[in-house]
């Protein structure tokens, strides 16, 4: 890629990256606090009694009362909220009823694999989406363009589980190339176990990325500075890399950033299919067991994660577009 990215990195470091990060963190605080409030409220407006729902139909009034006391549901709402926020400040998210372990500890264990899979899905979507989008744009109106466009639309229209199930059967049962479940051992094993879930997670976003890349490249190709670059007699590859691709990728970054929440949703389904212990797997277990403290913790972490990932992707702007300062 030449000196471009490196120079950009140095420029960012030189202009106070820490201050910028801090600025961004302050900016997302209101949203994050709102998410905390909603995660709290959501599990307290359950029709009926959450304690009774957790214990099921065979519960006695005494056991329901005991659980209410244990969860603090018998106290006034404002006190529950203060205790909840106070707990958050100490990273104490309560105790999981199903796993009989601190929620924070369970979340910490699940976070790594989930982040890895989210990263894998993003990489797959960019690796597939950007080249296909570029090819489609350069062959505008030709059969290849139409083919890519149709495939991209199919990609956006296929549910995650179809990819998951098909890949699982094809490459683990039929050809036995990849492991069917788990996280794998060692670096090689981890990567091998990551391939199929990443592809399954990334295909939806790949379709989106491909469509955006195509229209974005077409937009940039029509710009005056590109015409100028051509007419100066610059090498086509140079024009394409320095002038077209770099500018065309900016909307792609936006779309990837905006879809981090959808990506996390895909991760949940894929973790279920490939039996990968992660946030999604944990959420499913928590939901099946009606483990409300754990559900609340996962909801909270998933929102905060979405907000953070979104901001992280946004920071990439500064790498791509020197005009953007915030």
């Amino acid at each position, binding site marked *: 890629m030449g000196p471009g990215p490196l120079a950009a990195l140095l420029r960012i470091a030189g202009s106070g990256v820490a201050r910028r990060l801090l600025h961004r963190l302050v900016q997302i605080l209101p949203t994050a606090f709102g998410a905390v409030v*909603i995660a709290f409220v959501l599990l307290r407006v359950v029709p009926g009694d959450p304690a009774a729902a957790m214990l099921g139909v065979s519960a006695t009034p005494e056991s329901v009362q005991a659980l209410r006391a244990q969860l603090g549901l018998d106290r006034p709402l404002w006190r529950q909220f203060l205790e909840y926020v106070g707990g958050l400040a100490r990273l104490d998210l309560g105790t999981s009823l199903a796993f009989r372990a601190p929620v924070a500890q369970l979340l910490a264990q699940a976070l790594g694999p989930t982040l890895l899979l989210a990263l894998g899905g993003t990489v797959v979507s960019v690796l597939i989406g950007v080249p296909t989008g570029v090819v489609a744009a350069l062959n505008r109106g030709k059969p290849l363009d139409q083919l890519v466009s149709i495939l991209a639309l199919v990609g956006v229209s296929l549910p995650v*589980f179809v990819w998951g199930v098909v890949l699982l059967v094809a490459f683990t049962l039929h050809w036995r190339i990849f492991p069917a479940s788990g996280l794998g051992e060692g670096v090689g094993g981890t990567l091998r176990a990551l391939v199929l879930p990443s592809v399954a997670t990334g295909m939806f976003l790949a379709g989106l990325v491909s*469509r955006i890349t195509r229209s974005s490249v077409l937009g940039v190709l029509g710009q005056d500075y590109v015409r100028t670059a051509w007419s100066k007699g610059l090498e086509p590859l140079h024009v394409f890399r320095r002038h077209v691709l770099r500018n065309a990728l900016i909307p792609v970054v936006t779309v990837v950033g905006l879809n981090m*929440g959808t990506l996390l949703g895909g991760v949940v389904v894929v973790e279920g299919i490939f039996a990968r212990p992660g946030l999604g797997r944990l959420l499913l277990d928590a939901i099946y067991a009606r483990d409300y403290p754990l559900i609340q913790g996962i909801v909270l972490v998933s929102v905060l994660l979405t907000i953070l990932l979104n901001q992280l992707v946004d920071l990439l702007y500064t790498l791509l577009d020197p005009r953007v300062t915030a």
Partner: protein
Amino acid sequence: MALRGYSGGWEASAVRRLRRAIRGSWILWLASGFVVLLVGVAALVPYLHLADPFAQSLERLAPPAPEHPFGTDRLGRDVLSRTVWATRYALAVGIGTVAVGGTVGTVWGMAAGFSGPFAQEVLSRLVDVFLAFPPLILAMVVVTLLGNGVFPVVVALSFGIAPRFARVARAVVLAVRVQSYVEAARAIGASSTRILLRHILPNTLDSLIVLGTLTVPTAILTEALLSFLGIGIVEPTPTWGNIASMGQMVLREAPWVVLFPSLALLCTVLSFNLLGDAVRDALDPTTSRGVWMRRTERAELEVEPARLASRRIPAG
């Protein structure tokens, strides 16, 4: 038929553009045909003389054959019948979510754009917060709280959809409320309600129609994911997601159990997506025309100006 030659009227021309687009493209033609078919099938499914979708039999995992064109599932139920019946639930969820989430979101967004500065800030912040939740995870939790079934799923999906409508409605309201005709209406003493209903709502309609059309496939897809995970609309009610979920376990012996509901889902979502793109083009005359795909990315790029504008870009 006095209006036969009448060519003015903005909506009329939008409908005409849509019709022309559909006539000019065999893919759109196919997509709209499929949507019409879906609606017809959903309405008439009891009269189609299909096998009982709930009747179990000993013919388990039977491959496709004349008496069971899509084969049977693990409990010996007819997959064709279940797949066709599932159309009803998919459409109910898709349309229900647009109705509930769209209405709530529109009111929310109009309130956010039209109220005083404090309420406006709170309501807008609330939109941001809800948009930050991963839609599927939010829906999973809400369904868990409300219980299974079509209506809980519609409500759960609306939690993710409403803020999207609110964002669009708010943006339009903010743009329109400073227009001189709104000022004029206010000057002659029109009430806020009247201004909202007569002057602002009509202006939000085309953006909301586009969003609504594209929300249907999103809702259907998300419902399928929920049902696949066993928490949306659950067995024995047939939905494409839960048929596929059951089929997943027997995929090697009986691939048809996953194949047919997935195909139905794919064709449905694809058709609605294509139509949504076409509706967008028809309602937005500024987008370029050409092959059906050429125009589709416009709205996905619509976020761009707003986002870039919020950054400080030095002039020059």
